[in-house]
């Protein structure tokens, strides 16, 4: 306490301005609170369980911590104002200079900025913790193990059917036809209950031409020859048709047509994969981005390859070791399950065909409630797990040679006469469902959260919000400090009236004189802004002091808006000119960018610097105004 007093006296005697604003104490307090928030951020997700819900990166806003932040900020700022308002050298006419006045404003700005940006500290703590606890190298290894062990989780039967196979290479090169109507009964095909599979070699044809309805034209040659269409992909400006060459017999590689571990190619997780969640598990879907699709396909091939190689090696120990590794990781990540490597590998290990004989639940159902793989446990996840409906997948792409949608005409029984005597896949799944469970969704969310926190840039955009919040509050407090409550209230009311008047004027002009151009509105606002900026200078000494103060305060508080308005006007001119040019040429009007599009948030910093410069020079005028007699 005595030390605080000593420092206070030291500041009071030497730097009255700094003593008055209490910036030293506010910064110390602010830094302390920042450290606390950093610590909270660091420990908030120490338990892996806290990362097993969607969007953990936004926990700050959903956990109520934001309210704590707001309350602390408000308390700090109010407390600060109580202390600062005890003295006001400028109002008491103690000697002052423009620089001193500006420095005072700058201190307000810094104090408010520091007192409102705890979010950054929290996120820094959070991010540093995640980077430290789940470093990239370790996570890459873990994800590799997870992706390789995932095939043995056997939670969805559809992931183990034949069309999922990508390895050996033939499977990824050839197209797997699953539509009954398109199966060539004279060639080798495979049947599993009500599904038929036939592999085709394919070639591709790119079409860019469109008809008058904007639809891509079906290749003439193939139409004429009646070449079978495998599937197509839509790109931005083209469509790629894949046509069948001939059916290929891959039976040497296919030991069983029933669901088998050999077929599994699903990628559980890979980093930087934002499209993962949008991709369905069929190879001929429209992903939209060929590069992403290729990348994804490679991952699938990799998973399948690793799985097949492991199975082919017929090494039960290797499988058990992999599963043990996976369970160790699961334990570290606190993923709920009742698996053990020994029993699990025993469930998997059917070395003849590696057919999937047992299934594992995605969650532990409540007693008396039947397990439904498509439902999340009550209240556990934020959303229902998307069910994979194989019949809906790629329906649009089932075009015949004429480009028309085809419907089933052949009967499945033609291919599988024993159909009625067999279990359907759904029944097979139900019948062989074990009591083991593994919360896969938790694991996926956990991995997604870890990566999203690591890659999350919480600063570069949010900082502008806080900068302008600090400016607005700082300018408001500064306005009150240099004038009085009367001027401040009058300027708020006048600002409202001016906004209303300008709006009415623009609307009236649009109706009466048909002035609907946006430039008319922009220039009206700019002129009004310019008048407001000039009025304090013009009215000084000619009009009552209060009148000048109203426009002076408006200038101080709204100067950044004025600069922004100038930039918007420039931007609109640029884009309008560009539109006009491109209208007469072949250029796309969407390529027209103005200064705002080009520099984006950087302009926010520019506006801040310009505003600060303006205020620096404007303080001279403020002094002049203050010295005026009433």
């Amino acid at each position, binding site marked *: 306490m005595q030390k605080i007093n000593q420092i*206070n*006296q030291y500041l*009071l*005697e*030497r*730097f*009255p301005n700094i*003593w*008055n604003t209490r910036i030293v104490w506010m910064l110390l307090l602010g830094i302390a609170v920042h450290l606390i928030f950093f610590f909270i951020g660091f420990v908030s997700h120490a338990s892996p369980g806290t990362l097993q819900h969607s969007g953990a990166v936004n926990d700050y806003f959903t956990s109520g911590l934001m309210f704590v932040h707001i309350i602390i900020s408000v308390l700090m700022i109010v407390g600060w104002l109580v*202390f600062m*308002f*005890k*003295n006001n*050298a400028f109002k*008491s*006419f*103690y*000697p*002052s200079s423009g620089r001193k006045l500006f420095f005072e404003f700058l201190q307000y700005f810094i104090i408010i900025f520091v007192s409102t940006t705890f979010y950054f500290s929290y996120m820094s703590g959070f991010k540093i913790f995640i980077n430290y606890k789940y470093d990239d190298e370790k996570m890459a290894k873990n994800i590799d193990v997870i992706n390789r062990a995932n095939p043995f989780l056997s939670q969805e039967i559809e992931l183990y059917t034949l069309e999922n196979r990508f390895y050996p290479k033939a499977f990824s090169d050839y197209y797997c036809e699953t539509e009954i109507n398109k199966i060539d009964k004279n060639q080798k095909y495979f049947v599993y209950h009500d599904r038929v599979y036939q592999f085709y070699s394919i070639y591709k044809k790119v079409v860019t031409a469109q008809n008058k309805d904007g639809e891509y034209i079906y290749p003439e040659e193939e139409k004429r020859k009646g070449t079978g269409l495998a599937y197509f992909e839509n790109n931005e400006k083209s469509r790629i048709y894949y046509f069948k060459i001939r059916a290929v017999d891959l039976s040497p590689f296919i030991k069983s047509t029933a669901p088998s571990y050999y077929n599994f190619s699903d990628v559980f997780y890979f980093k930087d994969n934002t499209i993962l969640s949008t991709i369905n598990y069929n190879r001929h879907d429209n992903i939209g981005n060929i590069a992403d699709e290729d990348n994804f396909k490679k991952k699938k091939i990799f998973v399948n390859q690793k799985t097949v190689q492991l199975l082919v090696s017929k090494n039960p120990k290797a499988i058990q070791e992999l599963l043990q590794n996976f369970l160790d990781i699961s334990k570290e990540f606190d993923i709920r399950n009742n698996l053990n490597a020994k029993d699990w590998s025993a469930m998997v290990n059917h070395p003849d065909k590696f057919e999937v004989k047992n299934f594992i639940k995605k969650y532990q159902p409540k007693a008396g409630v039947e397990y439904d793989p498509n439902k999340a446990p009550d209240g556990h996840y934020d959303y229902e797990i998307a069910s994979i409906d194989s019949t809906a997948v790629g329906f649009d792409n089932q075009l015949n040679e004429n480009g028309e949608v085809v419907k089933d005409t052949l009967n499945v029984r033609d291919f599988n006469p024993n159909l009625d005597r067999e279990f359907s896949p759904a029944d097979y799944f139900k019948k062989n469902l074990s009591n083991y469970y593994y919360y896969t969704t938790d694991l996926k969310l956990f991995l997604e959260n870890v990566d999203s926190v690591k890659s999350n840039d919480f600063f570069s955009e949010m900082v502008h919000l806080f900068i302008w919040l600090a400016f607005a509050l700082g300018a408001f407090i500064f306005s009150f400090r240099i004038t009085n409550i009367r001027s401040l209230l009058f300027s708020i009311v006048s600002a409202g009236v001016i906004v209303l008047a300008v709006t009415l004027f623009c609307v009236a002009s649009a109706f009466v004189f048909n002035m609907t151009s946006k430039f008319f509105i922009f220039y009206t606002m700019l002129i009004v802004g310019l008048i407001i900026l000039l009025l304090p200078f013009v009215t000084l000494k000619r009009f009552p002091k209060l009148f000048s103060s109203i426009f002076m305060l408006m200038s101080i508080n709204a100067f950044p808006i004025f600069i922004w308005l100038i930039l918007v006007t420039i931007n609109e001119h640029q884009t309008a000119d560009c539109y006009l040019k491109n209208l007469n040429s072949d250029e796309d009007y969407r390529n027209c960018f103005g200064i705002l599009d080009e520099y984006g948030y950087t302009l926010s910093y520019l506006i801040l610097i310009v505003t600060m410069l303006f205020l620096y020079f404007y303080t001279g005028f403020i*002094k*002049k105004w*203050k*010295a*005026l*007699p*009433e």
Partner: protein
Amino acid sequence: MTKHQQRVKSVFHFFDNKDIVLGFRKLLDCAMDTQNMGIYNQAIELTDWKEKNPEKTDELIEKSKNLLTEIEKVDVKEYSTEISVLKADNIQKSYGRNRFSLGPVSLEIKKGQVYGLVGENGNGKTTLLRILAKEISHNVGKLNYQFDQTPKDEFELRTKLIYIPQRTEKWYGSLKDNLKFVLSNYGVNPEENETRTLMMIARLGLWNYKHLKWSELSSGYKMRFELARTLLRQPEILLLDEPLANLDVLAQQVILEDLKAISNSVNNPIALILSSQQLYEVEKISDKVIFLKNGKYQDNETQSETENPSLIVEIDTDNSREELLQIFHQLNLEKLNFNGGIFVAYFSSETEFSTVLSALGNSEIQVTYIRNISTSTRRFFVE
């Protein structure tokens, strides 16, 4: 012998006569004039000792004399008071049409002078003070200020025009910090800040009040603290609006004495204009008293030159008008006014006040109050 030495000598006399209260205040005045931090510290120490040992008067006198000897040795530069710090020329101010109008007022004040501004409520005292302090504008006339250093701009001029309104604003936080804040803003050497503040606290008799809160102070002490704050600004001109309001008679006299003494400093004199309702007290210390009635200017000096200086006597008695007329009938009585309890008798200029007194004495009349107001602005009030 310099002015400073003369003053120190007179303070010795006070202590010789054991007049400690006034003597100590004068001692602090002399100490302040030295502008010597060593002397300041000794004076502060002595004040502290004095407050802690109120009964040890003899020891105090001895210690005070020792300090005075030290003070006497310091060379104090005398400030020339020839130049007028403020010249107001035909100042006029009117509010709207047919409403109150002030002036024309012309006045000139030098450092070290004290002007009293009197008049009934609503006659423009505050308005005039605020015009002189540039707080409000005036319509006609010129204001000229002559400071030691010419202000760079209007704002700096305002920092030098020190005006204390009748109702001062509340202080927040430590009283001493508020005072130190003034000095640091005026760029006083940080090492001297504490000393100068304590010296001012000591001088204005606030030693035992410096740790209190603003709300714990009586209105008299609030005025004193406000005065301390003001004096720390080292004003060259000081404009006080009703500094005596809310003070008891004794406190009024003390504060007026202090104001007079401080503005009369040897090396740092201040031009002081104060408004007040306390005519008698103000007249006693003022070099000039300005009377405002309906915004019109009169003062005690110019008036006596222009008009026939009659003898005007104010008398409070229970006796009747007739009885008074009978007593004064041989004394060239011009008129006798009665305004609700008090008689004002106007005699020709030949009549002496002493004659009036002896006439009253001989008549065995019951007089509760009598005052010669011929040169006092009081006469404007009773007219």
